[in-house]
Structure formats: structure tokens, C-alpha cells
């Protein structure tokens, strides 16, 4: 019963979404207040209906209703509670339901937090949000129904894919979606602003917290994905330039540009049409990410339920939404006027430059990701683009970007003097040069020395801003601290990436207990090979002692697990690895067990210096975004026009 209820609620949400799309837009066009107000109620109702549908699916996962096909395929009576709940989005259908759920929730935020928005702007934004919901709900209902019944019902479920039974994997999709889908608000408000023919500080100030929130969630989501791929999939690296990684990185880059340009728009009234275009672009890149991962256009670990029909449906939605938005932009962008101009030599000028560099980076990655797809699809030619391409394109642009990031925040908003620029350069360039020389002397390669010097330069540049305001730190806004955390986070990441890339090493060898393998400054000694069973799996474990200079440092336990609950036909399951990790502040060492018999095992040992700081840096960036949200200038209250100018 509960599955049918869920299905009905999903269809109800779709019908409401259509009304939410049509009536408020028509009302705003005709100036009809009743129709405009209807939008707010529809957005809330639609959200409640999807919450109900999502709850119904979750209930069938928790209650082991194996008459629901999805539950039978992805749950099992031995699955722990946490993975019964996260199992809902561990598959295509449930994942899309989570997508529309988050879309519905963000849509409901407009009536809840937008009480003081101009009525027509609000009605139009809600209408466009309804249009988005209608499209994706129809996708879910028509091509990816999560409530399909299994007749006859299964006695037992197949169990959740064991590589997904991991906290980082479990929470990677919701965070990623909170990011991707959050940009729907940017998109809806951009289109609404184009329809209104007006973008102003009120618009920017209402939208900015949502941009910050989405972007910070996206940062967390990508970080979790990177961490999971690193230690569970055993990719051995934190970023592989894999197409599925790239498609999540592109909206992040565009989102980073949007976070900054909307700041300029909110405080200075500049860059309206650029910001609107960025808002459309960021959400479109999120849609492209969804399309690529869900269509199976690129093969990857995410390509469950590959189906060209679904891919085509998503492509049509993408073409429709982005196409209409860009057509609207082409038609109306001229109506958006900047209230304020700034000199190129200013903080705004530096932000514009960084915006351009972020977009150039996005385009670079876009080409790297899609050029091979298009060459193959259209000309049937094979071509692959890998790490070397990104090393020669991405890295130089990032270095340039960081150089500007060091200087920009020290400049005044609207205009600054060449004397001030000279004094900043005189402070920062010696830091850069000295650090570079020092690292060269310490034996780093020139590229590593450059990476490290640039990281230190950004760190010092950010601290100089803090120093220049040392007497008025208490009066600084939350956005200021957000800036400090964000930029320090990027400095930390830059240093960590460089140290990791130049210092990492690995090796493998077949070992008998007592024998050892030396990797980097560490010796890995195999102590024991054991077997046993736990919860819902059996395991083979290698106990390894890690030594440095003859001193025992830490034991590592690497396991191979066999989950009994997958494929119950003969009681034998699939093997997954659990890597013996020692995640250290400085060195991360780990060993994997790949092949064994009673007497010996093949052990692959890795030495990864400073890798953990890459994720810490990324989380600092996200933290910066979350801190900025507390800014009192971003509170949801009527905005005093005098305060704006």
C-alpha cells in the first residue's frame, strides 16, 4: 500500500508543479495578485507531496518491503539501519527521487524566506522553479519509477552494493545534490530577473546566501566523493580528472565565480548581466553533470542503470531549460543596467579578472571532458585526454588565479591607486621569490617549488588583509571571516597538492609473514594473515606492522571482505577491500591486500605525504562559505534602500 501511496504523491507533486509553473507566471504577466500568491502555496504543497513520496520509499527500505522492486534489488534484512536509509539513493531511481526532493525543498524556500521579495519577482521565480520540478518529476515518473512492484515479491533482498556501505559514499550524493540542485534557485531568479528586466541589490542579496549555501554543499559533496574514491575504490589518488569528477568540478568553478560576482552586484550594483549569465551557466553545468552521470554517456562507477532513453529525456530537459534561459538572456540582457562603474585597478576589477579566469578554467575542463565524446560521437574517431592536458592547462591558470587572489582583497572596492598596488607587490613578491628559492635549495623540483611558493604567497596575502584590519577585527562581518577561511583553505590545498604530488610513492610485493617491503621512509612488515566473520561479511585480514628507522610506528589491518548478502543464490558473496589506513597529519600510509593463499599475500603499500590536508583545505573552503551565511547583511529582511547605496 505504502508504495502506491508514494507513487500517487509523486504524481500529485507533478500536477501541482505544472500549476505552480503556469499560474504565477501568467499572474505576474497580467499583474493578477491572486494567481501570483497561488505560487507560494503550490511550492509548499509540492514540496510536502515529494517529502511524502520520499518518506514512502524510505519506509519500504526500512521495513524490508521486498515487494518493491527497488528495495528487493538494493536492500537486505541484514543491512544495518544507516545503510537502509542511505540505500534509498544508492540506485538510479531513488537517486532521482532524492534529486526532485531537494529541488522541491529549495523551491519551498522562496515562499518561506522570501516574504519581503517584490511580489512579481517572487511569483516568477516560483513559476520557473515549478517548471524545473515538473520536468524532473515527469522524468522520475515516466522513466525511473522508484515504486515499481516486484510480482511475486522476493523473499529476501539482494543487498546494498558493498562498496556503497561506507559513510563517505553514503553522504556524497545528498551533499552533491544539495549543491547542484541549490543552483536551481540561481537559475530561477536569473530567469525571473530577465523577465522583470531588472537586476538589483535586493535580488543579489536575497540570492547570495543560497548561492553560498549551494556552493559550500557542493564543495563538501565533491570532497566526500574524492575521499571515498581515494580510500574505498583504491584509486590511489585524490583526483583523477575522470569525466565524472570533471562534471562536478565545472559547476563548482562556475559557482565560485558566481559567489564572487554576486558579491560585487550586492554591494556595488555592478556586473548585473554577467552575474545573470553565470547563474544560468552554473545550474546548466549542474544539469549537464546530472545528464552525463545518469545517461551513461561516460562510463564510470556511477553508470548504474544506463539507458539511452533516459539519457535522451534528460538531454531534452537540459536543452529546453538552458536553451529557453539563454534565449531569454539574448532577448532581455540589454535591459539589465549596471548602477555603478568601477575602475579596473580595484577589488572589483580583480574579482572580474578572477571570474574570467574561473570561466576559462571551466571551458578548459569542458573541452577536455567533452571533446573526446563529440569526436567519437560525430566522427567515430578515438581520442583520449588525460592528466598531461590538465597539467599544461589547468595548473598555469590556477597559478595566475592565485597570484591575483593574493593582491585583490588588499585593494579598495571601487578604485585604488598604483602606489597602493606597488606597495602590495613590494610586500608579496619578495615572499613569493624567497619561498621559491628556499624550496629549490631544499631540493624540490622547480615546479614543486613554484606550487609551494604560490601557496605560501596566498596565505601571506590573506593574512595581510587580516593584519590591515587588526584593530577592527571585531567589527568585521561574517563575510570577511568567510573570505579568510575560504582563501586560507585554498592556500592549504595548494600546498598539500604540491607536497603530495612531488612526494608520493608506492610499491607491491608478495610477502610471507615476517617478510617486509620498503616504500618511502617506511618499512611494511607482514605479521599475520587471519580469517573470520563479522556482521554481514566474512573476511581475510593481513596484519601489517609499519616501521620507521627500525621503530614500530603503527599496525595496519588490511581486509578483504566477502558480503554474504549479495547474490543469495548459493550463499557466496562479492569481495571488496578494506584498506589498512593510517591517516596521519603529515604522512598517510596504507596497504592493500590483493591476492593471498594460506601462506603469503600480495601487499601493495603506499606512502602519501600531506594528502589529508587536501581535504582539510577543501573543507575549510566550504566552512568559509557556511560562515559567510551568518553575515547580517544577508538576513532575510526588508532591505533599506539607503543602506544599499
Amino acid at each position, binding site marked *: 500500500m505504502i508504495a502506491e501511496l508514494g507513487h500517487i504523491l509523486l504524481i500529485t507533486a507533478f500536477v501541482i508543479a505544472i500549476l505552480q509553473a503556469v499560474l504565477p507566471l501568467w499572474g505576474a504577466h497580467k499583474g493578477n495578485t491572486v494567481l501570483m500568491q497561488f505560487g507560494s502555496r503550490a511550492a509548499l504543497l509540492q514540496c510536502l507531496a515529494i517529502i511524502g513520496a520520499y518518506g514512502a520509499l524510505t519506509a519500504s527500505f526500512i521495513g524490508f518491503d521486498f515487494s518493491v522492486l527497488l528495495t528487493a534489488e538494493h536492500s537486505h534484512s541484514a543491512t544495518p539501519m544507516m545503510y537502509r536509509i542511505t540505500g534509498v539513493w544508492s540506485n538510479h531511481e531513488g537517486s532521482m527521487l532524492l534529486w526532485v526532493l531537494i529541488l522541491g525543498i529549495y523551491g519551498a524556500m522562496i515562499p518561506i524566506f522570501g516574504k519581503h521579495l517584490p511580489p512579481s519577482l517572487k511569483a516568477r521565480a516560483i513559476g520557473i522553479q515549478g517548471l524545473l520540478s515538473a520536468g524532473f518529476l515527469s522524468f522520475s515518473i515516466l522513466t525511473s519509477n522508484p515504486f515499481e512492484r516486484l510480482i511475486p515479491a522476493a523473499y529476501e533482498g539482494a543487498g546494498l552494493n558493498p562498496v556503497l556501505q561506507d559513510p563517505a559514499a553514503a553522504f556524497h550524493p545528498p551533499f552533491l545534490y544539495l549543491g547542484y540542485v541549490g543552483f536551481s534557485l540561481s537559475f530561477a531568479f536569473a530567469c525571473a530577473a530577465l523577465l522583470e528586466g531588472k537586476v538589483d541589490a535586493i535580488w543579489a542579496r536575497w540570492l547570495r546566501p543560497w548561492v553560498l549555501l549551494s556552493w559550500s554543499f557542493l564543495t563538501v559533496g565533491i570532497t566526500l566523493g574524492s575521499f571515498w574514491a581515494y580510500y574505498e575504490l583504491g584509486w590511489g589518488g585524490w583526483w583523477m580528472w575522470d569525466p565524472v569528477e570533471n562534471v562536478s568540478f565545472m559547476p563548482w568553478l562556475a559557482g565560485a565565480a558566481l559567489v564572487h560576482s554576486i558579491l560585487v552586484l550586492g554591494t556595488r550594483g555592478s556586473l548585473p548581466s554577467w552575474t545573470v549569465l553565470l547563474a544560468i551557466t552554473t545550474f546548466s553545468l549542474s544539469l549537464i553533470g546530472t545528464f552525463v552521470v545518469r545517461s551513461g554517456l561516460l*562510463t564510470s562507477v556511477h553508470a548504474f542503470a544506463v539507458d539511452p532513453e533516459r539519457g535522451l529525456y534528460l538531454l531534452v530537459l537540459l536543452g529546453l531549460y538552458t536553451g529557453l534561459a539563454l534565449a531569454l538572456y*539574448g532577448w*532581455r540582457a540589454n535591459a539589465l543596467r549596471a548602477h555603478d562603474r568601477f575602475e579596473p585597478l580595484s577589488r572589483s576589477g580583480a574579482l572580474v579578472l578572477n571570474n574570467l579566469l574561473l570561466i576559462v578554467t571551466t571551458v578548459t575542463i569542458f573541452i577536455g571532458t567533452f571533446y573526446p565524446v563529440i569526436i567519437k560521437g560525430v566522427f567515430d574517431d578515438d581520442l*583520449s585526454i588525460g592528466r598531461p592536458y590538465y597539467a599544461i592547462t589547468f595548473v598555469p591558470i590556477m597559478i595566475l588565479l592565485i597570484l591575483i587572489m593574493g593582491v585583490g582583497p588588499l585593494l579598495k572596492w571601487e578604485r585604488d591607486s598604483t602606489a597602493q598596488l606597488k606597495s602590495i607587490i613590494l610586500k608579496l613578491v619578495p615572499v613569493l621569490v624567497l619561498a621559491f628559492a628556499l624550496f629549490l635549495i631544499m631540493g624540490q623540483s622547480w615546479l614543486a617549488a613554484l606550487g609551494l611558493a604560490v601557496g605560501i604567497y596566498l596565505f601571506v596575502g590573506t593574512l595581510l588583509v587580516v593584519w590591515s584590519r587588526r584593530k577592527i577585527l571585531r567589527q568585521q562581518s561574517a563575510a570577511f571571516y568567510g573570505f579568510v577561511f575560504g582563501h586560507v583553505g585554498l592556500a592549504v590545498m595548494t600546498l598539500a597538492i604540491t607536497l603530495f604530488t612531488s612526494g608520493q610513492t608506492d610499491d607491491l610485493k608478495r610477502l610471507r609473514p615476517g617478510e617486509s617491503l620498503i616504500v618511502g621512509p617506511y618499512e611494511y612488515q607482514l605479521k599475520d594473515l587471519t580469517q573470520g566473520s563479522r556482521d554481514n561479511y566474512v573476511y581475510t585480514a593481513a596484519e601489517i606492522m609499519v616501521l620507521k628507522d627500525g621503530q614500530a610506528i603503527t599496525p595496519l589491518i588490511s581486509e578483504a571482505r566477502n558480503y554474504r548478502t549479495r547474490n543469495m543464490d548459493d550463499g557466496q558473496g562479492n569481495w571488496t577491500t578494506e584498506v589498512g589506513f593510517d591517516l596521519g597529519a603529515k604522512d598517510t600510509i596504507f596497504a592493500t591486500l590483493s591476492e593471498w593463499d594460506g601462506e603469503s599475500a600480495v601487499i601493495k603499500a603506499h606512502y602519501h605525504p600531506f594528502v589529508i590536508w587536501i581535504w582539510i583545505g577543501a573543507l575549510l573552503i566550504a566552512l568559509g562559505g557556511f560562515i559567510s551565511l551568518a553575515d547580517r547583511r544577508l538576513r532575510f529582511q526588508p532591505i533599506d534602500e539607503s543602506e544599499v547605496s
Partner: protein
Amino acid sequence: MRGLIPLLAFLALIVLLAVSILRGNSDQLSYKFLNEPFPEFELTELYDETRSVDQALIRGEITLVNIFGTWCTPCKAEHPKLVEIGETENLRLVGLNWRDTRDRAKSWLAQLGDPYDFVIYDRMGELVIAMGATGAPETYVIDAQGIIRYKHVGMVTDQVWAETLQPLIRQLESE
């Protein structure tokens, strides 16, 4: 007019993506090891735990390497075709058993037929990951020099065999 540039660029992209997706076969897109030597590995044979196998055994003649697991339903579906190829073609066929137990794999092959010249037992997916595989089944065409010449993702159906794999193998034979 300048405002329309983003729209035109986007429409061009959509058309290209639509063409790509409609023409299907995106197997080779992100495959980085095409025309690269078969990766080095050291594993054991499925039937004989003491017999070690490595990349040298893939060289010397044209070889099909087929990734399978008993847990993989499409593998079961494509298996009769592989058995047929094993019987009719003068070709080395190597199985790569992934994420399985030896017993289960052996009984699966005993039941469905074993077309393989030998089977690499890759319990943890060490070689599967090194090959850049994304799932099972996948079938690789390796030339006599041990270079990966083609990767097919998904089942080897009659059509895939007749239209893609067989012509490629004929071409490699004549090289």
C-alpha cells in the same frame, strides 16, 4: 545580437551531444589504455592456485580477454556466445574472473561450459582496475604484440561479434 552568442554555442553543443548519444557506442570514449600494452600483473590461475599467470601469457597471438563473474547476470547471458566462439574460432580466449570465489567460478563454468584457454583469477579486481574496466562483462581484443586494440563494454551478442569483433580480428590476422 551579442546576447545570443551563449545560446548559439549551447545549441551547437546540444546537437553534438544528441548525435553522440543517438549513435550510441560510447565504450571507447574514456578508455585511456586503448593502443597501450596490456598491463603488467601477477595473479594465479582459477583451477590451479599454484600456477601463476602474468602479462607474458597474453602475448604471441591474437587474444580475447573476457571479464566475468558469476554474480553478473549479463555474463551468464553472453556466455553461450563465448562458448560458440571458443568452438568455431582459432583464437586464444582468456577468462578474467572477477570478485568471485574459486569454487563458485569453477562450478559456474562446469555448468555453462568453459570456452577459455585459461582463466585468470582476480579476486580483488587488481588487474580489472589496472585495465581500466568499469564493470562486467567487458571483452578486450589484444593483438599478437600484446597491445589492447579494442574494448567492448557489455555483452558480446551475435551482432557485436559479427559487426565489430570478428571483422577487427580478421583485420588483425591480416596485419
